[in-house]
């Protein structure tokens, strides 16, 4: 071995070319046509009575194995080769010096390989009759409710057939590390059930071999292996391929590995699932050598093949059951979204939520600028930062990882909640995302040894591949990794995305239709306002004017009573005219466009003061204008706001001998606020709710003219400017109305 030994060294060791067999049998490789001997195991000397070298190149018919004549072997080979498939008639029983042997033949590498092994000396007949074996296996399969039950029964059955001290069923994980999932053992042995073994324990090329050669065993690790001579066979410059040879000697590394565990004999049987290695049945014997003969091996092989078949069916069933349930949940989520006509509610507010769509333990929905959390999740700010990272990391509409902290270091802070993340993009423009989280799978794994130290240094300083001497349990924590995301989980996340987008699109269309209706309604309202203005005011003007004309032309003929009646007609039409004008103004605030610009407030307020005071020459009014910061707004509307506020102030101070009105502006970075204060009758705060309502008048204002429109207009104008209006009042002392206009940087 080189000093650069690492785990891959073992993976490079060509274990199917050892050129050695185990000592309990014999191997002869012959020309499949001429039956001349190409190679033989060194231990043939004992039976043949001559060195191997002298046998090479001879016809098999000319040799003698103990009391077994070569011609008999030759005849057997002729018969075997006649069918073209010599292995079809395995085993071929022979007798040598009174002992029963079995010849097992197969063709490989252009050679016919004949292996001779003794029948088992341990029990008279280890192998049960085939039919009883199958019956037993089938009934175990039928009676086992769960997979682990079935595996345990199988382990027991194999132990029964073989008599091994320990039979384990070993299952491979995704990373090819193994776990003991079932075990049958002699009572005095330490249980290995639940132990994990690192992937380097069974290197890749051994796993490949296990897929081809389903059963192999080592009868006694202490027996020296026997070389096959010569090293290279026939005209080839390489040893014979012993892949299918049952006597094949195993790698010295493996022998050392077994010795470290105190194992004297072992056997392993492959379990395949869809042509991949699912696991192994591993048998250990500690109390002495143990050789399992060919018929027993065939029985075990049959049991393991039955088990493999069941694995396929069971695993398919389990997978499809889970998949059916998840699909049902996805459909339920879709129906909930439709029934509620609300994405967030449909996904999060029913017994079935997005958490039921997969095996995640937490979920987050960022939708319409709101973050909704379900289950066990990182903090909202952590999720928002994660989303920022995710959306810049992938242009795809779906993203998944089971080791987020390794891609995104901040995730280490919340790996117990989200070491794995599955994200689907709902809309990049709207910044809408759906995420699922899986926690760090803190694998408190019981390792059969330290998986980090398979390589050890020898006394001479060379690095050499050596299995661990220590098999004490220890716990390794696999950090930063969650369970991986299954195909069906990702598929359903994408399906949900489609359903969700369909609903969002449906809602958008509905909103568009509503907007169109609203626009039409607004247009109608505007047309209606115009009609009210013109068509109602014209006849009203006529009534008023003809009343005046009548009084002018025939006034002399009327008595005082008749004149009073005519005055009432004029006043009533004046009131109606004012009401129509107010309604007009109110509706115009909603419909007319907003031409916002910076308004010189001082000029506007001075002008308003002059206009409003012009009709109040008989009263004592102090009208004070203080700071007047300019504000941004629609000139007509802002003018209307102050006109209404100031005329209210003048109106409701009428009963006060010395009226005092103060107008004062102030500004901050965000807004400009004006306060209009008077010392008038004020507002009873109990009726504060009515102040800004259309056509609502307060009790205290009953004796003042008006229709309850002015402040409603003020409120409407402020709302169109994204501004605010509020007030505070101590009746007969100070009543202040505040209006605030936002400052916009434009």
């Amino acid at each position, binding site marked *: 071995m080189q000093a650069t030994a690492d785990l891959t060294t073992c993976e490079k060791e060509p274990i199917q070319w050892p050129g050695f067999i185990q000592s309990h049998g014999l191997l002869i490789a012959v020309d499949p046509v001429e039956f001349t001997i190409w190679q033989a195991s060194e231990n043939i000397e004992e039976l043949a009575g001559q060195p191997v070298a002298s046998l090479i190149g001879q016809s098999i018919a000319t040799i003698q194995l103990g009391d077994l004549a070569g011609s008999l072997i030759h005849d057997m080979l002729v018969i075997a080769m006649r069918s073209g498939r010599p292995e079809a008639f395995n085993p071929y029983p022979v007798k040598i010096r009174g002992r029963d042997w079995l010849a097992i033949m197969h063709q490989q590498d252009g050679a016919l390989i004949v292996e001779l092994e003794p029948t088992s000396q341990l029990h008279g007949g280890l192998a049960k009759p085939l039919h009883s074996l199958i019956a037993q296996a089938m009934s175990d399969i039928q009676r086992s409710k769960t997979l682990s039950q079935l595996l345990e029964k199988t382990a027991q059955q194999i132990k029964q057939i073989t008599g091994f001290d320990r039979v384990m069923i070993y299952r491979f994980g995704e990373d090819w590390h193994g776990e003991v999932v079932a075990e049958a053992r002699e009572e005095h042995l330490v249980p290995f059930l639940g132990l994990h073994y690192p992937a380097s324990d069974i290197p890749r090329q051994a796993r490949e071999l296990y897929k081809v050669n389903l059963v192999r065993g080592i009868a006694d690790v202490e027996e020296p292996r026997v070389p096959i001579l010569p090293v290279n066979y026939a005209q080839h410059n390489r040893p014979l391929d012993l892949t299918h040879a049952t006597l094949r000697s195993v790698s010295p590394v493996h022998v050392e590995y077994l010795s470290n565990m105190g194992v004297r004999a072992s056997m392993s049987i492959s379990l395949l699932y869809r042509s991949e290695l699912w696991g192994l049945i591993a048998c250990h014997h500690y109390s002495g050598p143990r050789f399992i003969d060919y018929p027993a091996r065939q029985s075990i092989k049959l049991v393991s093949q039955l088990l493999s078949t069941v694995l396929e069916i069971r695993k398919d069933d389990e997978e499809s059951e889970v998949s059916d349930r998840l699909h049902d949940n996805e459909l339920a989520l879709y129906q909930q979204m439709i029934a509620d006509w609300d994405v967030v509610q449909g996904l999060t507010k029913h017994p079935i939520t997005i958490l039921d769509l997969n095996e995640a333990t937490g979920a987050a929905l960022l939708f319409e600028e709101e973050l909704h959390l379900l289950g066990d999740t990182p903090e909202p700010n952590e999720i928002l930062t994660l989303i920022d990272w995710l959306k810049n990391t992938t242009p795809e509409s779906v993203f998944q990882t089971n080791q987020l902290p390794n891609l995104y270091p901040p995730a280490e802070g919340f790996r117990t909640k989200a070491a794995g993340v599955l994200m689907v993009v709902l809309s990049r423009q709207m910044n809408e995302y759906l995420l699922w989280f899986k926690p760090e799978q803190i694998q408190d794994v019981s390792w059969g040894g330290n998986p980090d130290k398979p390589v050890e240094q020898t006394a001479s300083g060379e690095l050499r591949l050596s299995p661990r001497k220590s098999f004490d349990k220890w716990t390794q924590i696999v950090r930063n990794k969650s369970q991986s995301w299954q195909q069906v989980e990702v598929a359903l996340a994408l399906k949900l995305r489609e359903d969700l987008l369909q609903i969002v699109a449906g809602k958008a269309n509905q909103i568009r239709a509503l907007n169109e209706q609203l626009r039409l309604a607004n247009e109608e309202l505007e047309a209606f306002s115009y009609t009210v203005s013109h068509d109602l005011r*014209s006849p009203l*003007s*006529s009534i008023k004017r*003809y009343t005046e004309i009548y009084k002018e032309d025939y006034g002399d003929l009327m008595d005082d009573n008749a004149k009073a009646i005519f005055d009432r007609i004029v006043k009533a039409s*004046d009131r109606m005219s004012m009401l129509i004008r107010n309604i007009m103004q109110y509706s115009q605030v909603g419909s007319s466009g907003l031409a916002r610009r910076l308004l010189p407030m001082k000029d506007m307020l001075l002008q308003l003061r002059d206009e409003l005071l012009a009709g109040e020459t008989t009263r004592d009014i102090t009208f004070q204008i203080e700071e007047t910061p300019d504000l941004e707004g629609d000139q*007509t509307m802002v003018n209307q706001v102050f006109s209404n506020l100031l005329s209210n102030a003048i109106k409701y101070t009428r009963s006060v001998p010395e009226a005092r009105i103060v107008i004062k502006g102030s500004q901050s970075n965000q807004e400009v606020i004006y306060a209009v204060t008077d010392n008038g009758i004020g507002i009873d705060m109990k009726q504060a709710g009515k102040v800004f309502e259309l056509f609502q008048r307060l009790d205290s204002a009953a004796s003042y003219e008006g229709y309850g429109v002015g402040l409603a207009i003020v409120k409407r104008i402020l709302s169109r400017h994204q501004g605010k209006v509020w007030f505070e009042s101590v009746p007969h002392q100070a009543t202040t109305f505040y209006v605030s206009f936002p400052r916009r940087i434009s």
Partner: protein
Amino acid sequence: MPDILYVEDNPDEADIFRRLISRMENPPSFLLLSSGSEAIDYLLQQGTYQGQSTPLPRLVLIDLKLPGHNGFEVIQQVRATSRTCYLPLVVYSTSDNPKDMRRAYDLGANAYLIKPESYHQVSEMMRLAIDFWLTQSQYRP
């Protein structure tokens, strides 16, 4: 030749106009038309007025809300025709909507009067307007 062309569809308005003119010391002559379309035909000598001699007034008073072509369209047509493009046009409307005023001036109205509600105010407004446009203002197209 009429001194004033008054385009007005409301018979009451027309009646009051007639009445207040008749009370003036030197009543001007006037022609009343009750639709925008008829006013355009008259001023542009088209439609039923085609081929007829339609003397231009010295002042056009025009309501905005009219059947057929409204007041705005009349202003537009009058200003777009060389024969009438300098004709004094005064809007006389109930509307105090700033949008209407703006639009009227944009199209080329010379003045905008809002109809008062009281008869006395109406008659005072008309007396002043007629004095201004027919006596004070100089018009030699």
